[in-house]
């Protein structure tokens, strides 16, 4: 993010007002930088026009890695490296290998997906969240608009924000 940009910050009290406001603001041609909410607001990502996250695909691929890893590991260890007759079964008998395969699939899928989520969302310890308004983790919804990216004048956007139901509109720099 570039430093020293000017932002308009609209504070909203209710998630349904916010959803309407996001739509109306975008219809008027104002580009929204980001909306910060204290809890997940369903439908907000659609109103903001975000593309669906591809994390499910990542989860599937990590899971597939886990399956292949677990199967090859067991087959190689008990089938190739040190074959042993256990309970009269074949060296490589698939049914007893299924539980470990399933567990490793789940393990690697979960950790891989969560790790990807952390990386793409840039979540890490000691990161400064640099919030526009501290109330956004309490009870207010915060809509940030980067003035540098918008052609409309600051006062025009301010009046649009007030019209669509913002409780307060502040101007900040960061």
């Amino acid at each position, binding site marked *: 993010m570039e430093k020293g940009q000017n932002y308009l910050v609209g504070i909203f009290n209710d998630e349904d007002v916010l959803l309407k406001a996001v739509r109306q603001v975008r219809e008027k041609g104002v580009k929204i930088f980001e909306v910060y909410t204290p809890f997940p607001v369903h439908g907000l990502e659609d109103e903001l026009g975000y593309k669906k996250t591809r*994390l499910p695909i990542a989860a599937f691929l990590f899971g597939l890695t886990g399956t292949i890893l677990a199967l090859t590991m067991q087959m190689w260890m008990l089938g190739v490296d040190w074959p042993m007759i256990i309970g009269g079964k074949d060296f490589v008998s698939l049914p007893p290998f299924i539980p470990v395969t399933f*567990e490793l699939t789940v393990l690697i899928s979960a950790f891989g997906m969560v790790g990807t989520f952390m990386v793409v969302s840039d979540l890490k310890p000691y990161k400064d969240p640099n919030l526009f308004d501290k109330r956004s983790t309490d009870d207010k919804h915060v809509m940030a608009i980067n003035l540098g990216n918008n052609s409309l004048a600051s006062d025009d956007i301010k009046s649009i924000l007030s019209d669509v139901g913002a409780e307060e509109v502040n101007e900040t720099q960061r």
Partner: protein
Amino acid sequence: MQATSSLRESLVTGGKTVHDVTQDICSRVEDKPNKTWLGAMTLSLITLGIGAYAVFMLLWDGIGVWGLNKTVGWAWDITNFVWWVGIGHAGTLISAILLLFRQKWRMSINRAAEAMTIFAVICALMFPALHMGRLWLGFYWALPLPNTFGSLWVNFNSPLLWDVFAISTYFSVSLVFWYIGLIPDFATIRDRATNKVSKAVYGALSFGWDGAAKTWMRYESVALILAGLATPLVLSVHTIVSFDFATSVIPGWHTTIFPPYFVAGAIFSGFAMVLTLMIVTRKVYKLEDYITIYHIELMNIVITITGSIVGIAYITEFYMAWYSQVPAEGYAFLNRMAGPYSWAYWSMMTCNVISPQLFWIKKIRTSIAATFIISIIVNIGMWFERFVIIVTSLHRDYLPSSWAYFSATRYDVGVYLFTFGIFFTLFFLFAKFFPVINMAEVKSIIKTSSEKKD
């Protein structure tokens, strides 16, 4: 967006606003610990200390200090292990399966229930670890690591090894699931923090969470997939635990009914433990508006259902013992009911089969005192269930000259107390320093205005 019928009872009472949720939950973290908490913490640390002595003696002298003998080689250790793992199942059921079923009442109890899961699994892990005697060698016995025997690998055909993978996966996935849910709430505490220490600690724990719409979108997707992964995982864990018995050829263990029967029993005992803990937490932290009678009633209904499944499973086992016409099988079950351990069997039947049926009466299932008592009775009963399955099936084996009776020693009791110490110490620490209710989720079911999305 989901439509909720206006006929449904409100899940959060007392006309709470979104800000009230923050205030009510965060103030428990911010306030100085009260006397009740300090007293409870002291008690659990004393328990932990007594237990630690038993664990030390166990490691010093070996498992000979337990009451095991040549015939009964498995008793309290595996009983306690299965009991704790079972208790853990309720947390995952509440947070994952109820999320998939869109049951919103899970929201005020899932945080504490998941914490309970994690702590219960830690307690469970103590038993397989400690019973090995030389637990520092356990890694080589349990994990496929290259070793000095020219890499003689672990036996992937053994249900005990499946257990290692199942329990460790279950523990780590539950931990991640729980932590992901905690991040937004840690951010709330961080932004309210006034002193330096809590600012730094919760700042680190919250991973720089800012609540951006894009992050929430990904967060919800991650939560949904983790729930989807945790659901078959939790069912697999107790299934594999039951395989420890079911794949053997001991009469009384060798039954195909075990996996569903164990899973139902696990959810049964887990919900009972959630209720025991939540009724106390709710009272001490004055959370009556978040965990309402309605929540307690719903949990009691789950207890009645799973308790009935367990009861039917007991009866089915008896029927199959007769229907199979295998003398050893028939004897194992008659011995259970009328043998030297019949006291354990009838305790189990009373606690597990009869007591949950009382919840058919609305007055009892909406009474806090009755729920609290029955929840403890159920957990006693579920402990006896595992004891009955394990010890009564072993103590009279194929050779009558080696028949024996198992009695617990004080070290059996001491190691069990040790896990209680761990469990309650961790739970009280959690209740003091972590938000006990998932604030972000509860906020999402509170309506701030009459405005409707068109």
